[in-house]
């Protein structure tokens, strides 16, 4: 085989491998669209389920997922970004820091059901928040922390050292340097990480299973101490627990959930690519 032929072969193999990865995803999405698109209407999004959930819409579950995602953001962003600033800017290279980093890596590897059970033990029972949006948000927040910490730390570290040195040389304190010269440049990266983390949280079922999610609620939640329905759990329920569930509603629900998660990911990707193009150093 000549060098040109082996080059051709390599390109062919790599293209085929990429296709093998992409095609199943496309098939899944198209299949869901085919089965679910006809169900989706304003009524489906804005109405509660009726008649044993076999009719009506998904509004309470959709709203619950929005609340949970916002709650996760409130719980995880300050902690995660704060920890990232500490690790990137203040922490020295010592045993404590290495232990913290190891803990973060391990947190990222924990199965989501373990988070769910931890949330049940810690927030629902021990702290006595009950099965509530609060307990669910904290559990999801905990699960999201490693993603936010590691992407935010990476974003902070990618700000050129020179900016810090110049800022310090002008008589700025360390915090003023971080606040005014480091964080603004790291912000797009931090936002990207936060959104990716939230996107993952929005689609998770296991962490909310014991901490917040309700099978069916006639009323919308009134405070963070109330239970709520949530899309991923609702999908699980209507797909496996309700006999005689029309397929259209199942696929429609799945489609909406997919749409939420994909649009969060898309926004994150757009922010990242725009900022990368605008980067001036």
């Amino acid at each position, binding site marked *: 085989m000549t060098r040109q032929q082996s080059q051709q072969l390599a390109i062919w193999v790599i293209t085929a491998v990429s296709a093998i990865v992409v095609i199943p995803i496309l098939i899944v999405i198209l299949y869901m669209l085919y089965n679910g698109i006809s169900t989706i209407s304003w009524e489906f999004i804005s109405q509660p389920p009726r008649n044993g959930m076999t009719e009506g819409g998904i509004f309470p579950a959709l709203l619950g997922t929005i609340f949970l995602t916002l709650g996760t953001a409130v719980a995880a962003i300050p902690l995660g970004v704060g920890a990232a600033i500490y690790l990137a800017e203040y922490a020295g290279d010592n045993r404590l820091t290495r232990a913290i980093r190891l803990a973060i890596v391990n947190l990222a590897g924990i199965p989501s059901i373990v988070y769910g059970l931890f949330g049940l033990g810690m927030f629902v029972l021990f702290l006595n928040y009950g099965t509530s949006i609060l307990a669910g948000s904290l559990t999801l927040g905990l699960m999201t922390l490693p993603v936010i910490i590691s992407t935010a730390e990476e974003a902070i570290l990618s700000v050129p050292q020179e900016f810090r040195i*110049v800022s310090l*040389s002008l008589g700025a304190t360390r915090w003023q340097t971080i606040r005014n010269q480091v964080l603004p440049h790291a912000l797009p990266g931090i936002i990207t990480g936060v959104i990716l983390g939230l996107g993952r949280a929005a689609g998770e079922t296991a962490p909310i299973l014991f901490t917040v999610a309700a099978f069916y609620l006639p009323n919308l939640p009134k405070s963070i101490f109330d239970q709520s329905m949530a899309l991923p759990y609702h999908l699980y329920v209507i797909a496996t627990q309700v006999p005689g569930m029309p397929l259209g509603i199942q696929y429609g629900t799945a489609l909406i959930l997919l749409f939420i998660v994909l649009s969060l990911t898309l926004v994150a990707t757009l922010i990242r690519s725009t900022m990368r193009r605008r980067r001036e150093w």
Partner: protein
Amino acid sequence: MIKNKIDVEGFNFYYGNFQALKNLNVPIREHQITALIGPSGCGKSTFLRSLNRMNDTIASARAEGKVLLNGKNVYDPDVDVVELRQRVGMVFQRPNPFPQSIYNNVAFGPRVLGMAQKGTDLDNIVEASLKEAALWDEVKDRLNHLATDLNPGQQQRLCIARAVAVRPEVILMDEPCSALDPVATLSVEELMRELSDEYTIVIVTHNMQQAARASDWTGFFWLGELVEFAPTGELFTNPKQELTESYITGRQG
């Protein structure tokens, strides 16, 4: 009689076990330009950064001896490093404006030091600083433009404006012209001469013509030691040390 702005006395500096500066004694005269010359790695930049304690950020670094600024040792435990750096400003080798507007580059220091937050007070500081750096006429109509769009010579003068905006007493310049073309270099040198009325300037340079042209005093560093320190004219025309002579005539280094 010109007084000494900075007196360095018995100063040693170490990176871990490596001694970068050996028992230095350097007088820096007020309102004069002191040039430090010597081959790469001789310690002149380390010395410069010791004067405003920018070396503090290096974990393994250690300083011994005294750097007296107006008679007060800047390495004393009661010295506030942040305040010291306001008093002893710095201009770097590569023009390094923040990727922000021209205005915000100059306004950054005054803002963080609480000299002025906004409005006419801040406008006045920015204008005065840009005038001091001989950049005002070129940028006054586009203060909101990105500083990184200026040419390198303008960027370096902007960095000088940024440094003078916090009213330092001393300005340290670490090879400020090494990234500039000859025309821009000359304009920075002229600027240094004007600034020396107001500030004490210490400049590290690789360019011996620059030291000879632009400075009042010259120190020659070799392997972490100060070989010779003399008025510039004297050092270049009549060096006392053989090593100095062979370096400035290009036989050594």
